[in-house]
């Protein structure tokens, strides 16, 4: 990458290769000698954790594909064949299924870290946008992957989501997605094909994401640019070891789910084979989609609901320009910090809403009263409040606060502290 290369080819063959394809230089520059701010905290380890998640999903996924049969008649039984008859198939499948949840857990922490420390601000806008592209691809991949076991929730989840796409783009697109006039064998076939394709597209965008990271270099908890060599340490061994430790701790959580609660994040209905004649009592997506599901159902009009749901991610693409503050890190923006934690809370509340039926009561003993189309004490209204707060934070608080707040003084550089600095 640009600028800092310190690689000296030592042997004749390295010198020969370096003038033809400097791949060793590339590897040394990106993964070994890359100057990295020395003050990165553990929130920065999620980049490495996510890379490990992607590799884990691809490796386990390829093995699963060797045993899986993507046909409506056999998909469910072939997954059970993996669970029962394939050597360690149960482990591979549970790693893959829980790996999706772990991947999203890590990506949400990674995104919120980026927001808190202003990592999307100039000159890292492209880095941020590429990250969101990865996130969108992850959502598509996870959704199609959840359809593959062909259980009840797979089938009905696919039906609901493809209908939403139809609400936005029209029935012709739905028919194209389905490969027919209902979710059926052709749908399963194309979802399997795309589920196998998209992870490699993710890997490609990840390469761009890392490239876009290595041009300006890492942001850091203080949010000030690297000024001198004293501010940095080489990536290896300093961050390979720190990231390595974080990855192992993350694996402890991951393994606890895989080996001791492998079905805790799934849904019992998905252990019943897909049946187009029986609708499950509650159709709920996986936990990582719940906030968006709540936004979708908060709006009575199907098209507007779908637009709000996609808009909730779309608005994030504009974040580098919506946020008017010149200060990156919220360590030096006390009021922004308060709103940030409220925003995290709102996202959790929306997730909670997505897990409940819209007409269910929020407070059990309370009757509430009818307001327009629904009871005020119902999850519909809580979802609406949450949706308003979500867009309010991004659309109003972010631009206005940056202009009106009075940030604390920021340090001169990473190595020189300011007297008034507080731990953040």
């Amino acid at each position, binding site marked *: 990458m640009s600028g800092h290369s310190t690689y000296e080819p030592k042997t004749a063959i390295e010198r020969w290769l370096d003038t033809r394809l400097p791949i060793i230089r590339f590897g040394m520059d990106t993964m070994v000698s890359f100057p990295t701010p*020395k*003050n*990165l905290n553990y929130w920065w380890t999620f980049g490495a954790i996510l890379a490990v998640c992607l590799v884990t999903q691809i490796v386990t996924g390829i093995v699963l594909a060797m045993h899986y049969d993507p046909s409506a008649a056999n998909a469910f*039984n072939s997954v*059970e064949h993996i*669970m*029962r008859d394939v050597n360690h198939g*149960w*482990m591979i499948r*549970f790693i893959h299924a829980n790996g999706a949840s772990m991947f999203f857990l890590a990506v949400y922490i990674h995104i919120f870290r980026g927001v808190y420390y202003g990592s999307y601000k100039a000159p890292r806008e492209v880095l941020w946008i590429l990250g969101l592209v990865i996130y969108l691809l992850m959502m598509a991949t996870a959704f199609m992957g959840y359809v593959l076991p062909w259980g009840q929730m797979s089938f009905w989840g696919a039906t609901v989501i493809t209908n939403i796409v139809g609400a936005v783009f029209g029935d012709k697109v739905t028919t194209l997605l389905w490969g027919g006039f209902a979710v059926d064998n052709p749908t399963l076939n194309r979802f399997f094909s795309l589920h196998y394709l998209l992870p490699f597209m993710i890997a490609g965008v990840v390469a761009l994401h890392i490239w876009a990271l290595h041009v300006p270099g890492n942001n850091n908890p203080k949010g000030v640019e690297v000024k001198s060599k004293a501010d940095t*340490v080489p990536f290896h*061994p*300093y961050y390979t*070891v*720190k990231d*390595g*430790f974080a990855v*192992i*701790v993350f*694996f*402890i959580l991951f*393994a*606890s789910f*895989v*080996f*001791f609660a*492998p*079905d805790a994040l799934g849904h*019992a*209905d998905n*252990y*019943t084979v897909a049946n187009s004649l029986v609708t499950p*009592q509650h159709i709920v997506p996986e936990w990582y989609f719940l906030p968006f599901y709540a936004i979708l159902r908060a709006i009575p009009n199907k098209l507007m609901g779908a637009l709000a749901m996609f808009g909730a991610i779309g608005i994030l693409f504009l974040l580098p320009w919506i946020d008017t503050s010149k200060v990156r890190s919220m360590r030096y923006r006390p009021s922004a910090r308060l709103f940030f934690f409220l925003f995290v809370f709102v996202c959790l509340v929306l997730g909670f809403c997505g897990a409940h039926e819209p007409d269910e009561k929020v407070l059990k*003993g*309370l*009757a*509430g*009263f009818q307001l327009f189309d629904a009871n*005020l*004490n119902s999850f519909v209204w809580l979802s609406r409040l949450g949706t308003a707060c979500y867009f309010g934070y991004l659309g109003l608080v972010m631009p206005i606060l940056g202009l009106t707040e009075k940030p604390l003084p920021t340090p001169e550089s990473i*190595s020189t*502290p300011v007297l008034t600095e507080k731990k953040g």
Partner: protein
Amino acid sequence: MLRKALILAAALGFVAAAQPSFAEVSQKPIEPVKWSFEGPFGRFDQEQLQRGYKVYHDVCSACHAMNLMSYRNLGQEGGPFYDPKYKTSNDNAKVKAIAKDFNVPDIDSDTGDVIKRPATPADTFVKPFPNEAAARASNGGALPPDLSLIAKAREDGPNYIYHLLTGYEAAPAGLRVPAGKYYNPYMPGDLGSFWSGHGPAPEGGFIAMPLQLTADRVTYDDGVKATPDQEAQDVVTFLAWASEPHADERKQTGVAVLIFLFLFAGVVYASYRRLWKDIDHG
């Protein structure tokens, strides 16, 4: 802002009154039962699995299929009839004897005729009905669910099945029970339209299966007294095992994996501390 919120909360509190509750699916709360296989160190008890298979074989299998199970599964490691003496469960004498008592359809390879032959350990469990229509016709229109995954396909499966099997009650006065249906407080349902008694409709729903597990419904080979509670616990244990036959192996592996990860984490943390010792990374 806080005052406004308080006023709003108070106003909401006033409205809190008895509104007619609308139709909702309900069931009696499921109390947890003590299982040998629960928790990270829980394991299936082989004798209990054998008794559970006996209950399935003598009672459940009259109506319920287990499509994902083969006779060989009964003799695999961790299964009810596992015997380390045999290299594979296909050689297991007990499993062979169990399979032999069933007849399965086949094609005579010399003549091409459709024949019946005794099952081998490689055959899947014989189904009680040839197809869904036949199953429904014999059960008043209801389809007895396949039991291969039933302990996973229901929320809180083992506890739910136990209570469903043992929790039959006489229908309360005022509940109109349709012909061929039985009242069970643990069956999720909405009895509002069948209820003419006082107060809210009772919890639970109707089920097409009558009470099955009565005292001495089966005779256990190991002499354990066949009370309804014992039969239910045994068959639930068997069904829980069948829904994930490698569950014990999974948990055993998990303990080893976690021990390794904790040790590895400790070593890597120590090297991290040592490496960063002289760097002020505030």
